[in-house]
């Protein structure tokens, strides 16, 4: 059976919606971050699929954009987890729905 764009896009779409559900429904901050990472991965997958199948004069653009998404995802994960740890230090909880006060 020959693989084409639709196959990869469906996997990307399913992964993205699953990531969204996880990000919205998890109680623990690390769980929310996992959802976000999943969504970013789904985006990477669709980008590479388009770069492989799509008709464009510069197919390498997909790869470049994915490498930037990976860099930003790494930086964002670092800062988000640092925040989670420091919030845990001061509030003894990382439950997302308990962190609703703006002042410490």
């Amino acid at each position, binding site marked *: 059976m020959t693989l084409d764009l639709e196959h990869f896009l*469906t996997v990307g*779409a399913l992964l993205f919606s699953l990531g969204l*559900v996880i990000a919205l*429904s998890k109680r623990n901050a690390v769980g929310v971050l996992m959802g976000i990472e999943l969504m970013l991965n789904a985006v*990477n997958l669709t980008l590479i699929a388009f770069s492989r199948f799509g008709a464009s004069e510069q*197919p390498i653009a997909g790869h470049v954009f994915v490498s930037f998404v*990976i860099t930003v995802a*790494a930086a964002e994960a670092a800062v988000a987890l640092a925040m989670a*740890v420091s919030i845990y230090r001061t509030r003894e909880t990382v439950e997302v729905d308990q962190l609703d006060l703006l002042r410490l």
Partner: protein
Amino acid sequence: MDGAGVGIAFWALAFVTLGAAGGVMVSRNLLHAVLLLIVTFIGVAGFFVLLSAEFIAMAQIVIYVGAIAVLMLFAIVLTPRTIRDNSETAMVGPAILLGIALGTVFLFVIYDTEWAVVASDPALSAEDLGKALLSTWVLPFEIASVLLTAALVGAIMLVRTSEEEAEDDA
């Protein structure tokens, strides 16, 4: 992209990746969730290999599995046992509905539009990526390095305890 092997590989990877992603949603223990997330990352790296983007696949494993997953493990270990369960908030119902709705919209768009598809594989190698990064996209490349440094310093500043600061001032 034909041949029996590639088809089998695609369906196997799809099953593993989406199964693991579902596991992240369902599993009760947060650590199991992170390990299943790692399996998802490896699955996505497998997809990149299927799409003949080897360098991105390897980068994905080095950075996502090697660094971000380890970061999450550290975060879980540093926030001790009380919050180890992976339970959902009250918003789980609407979240699932929104997810399903968004999924159907995506699938409709995918199968409805006529994609301008080119059958031949542009066979992009790491060399092309390197040349592209350092020729047309050199500015975002430099900004990305600045971003990484900022994130590094920011993360360290956030997590430093008072004694470490006192240590440095003394």
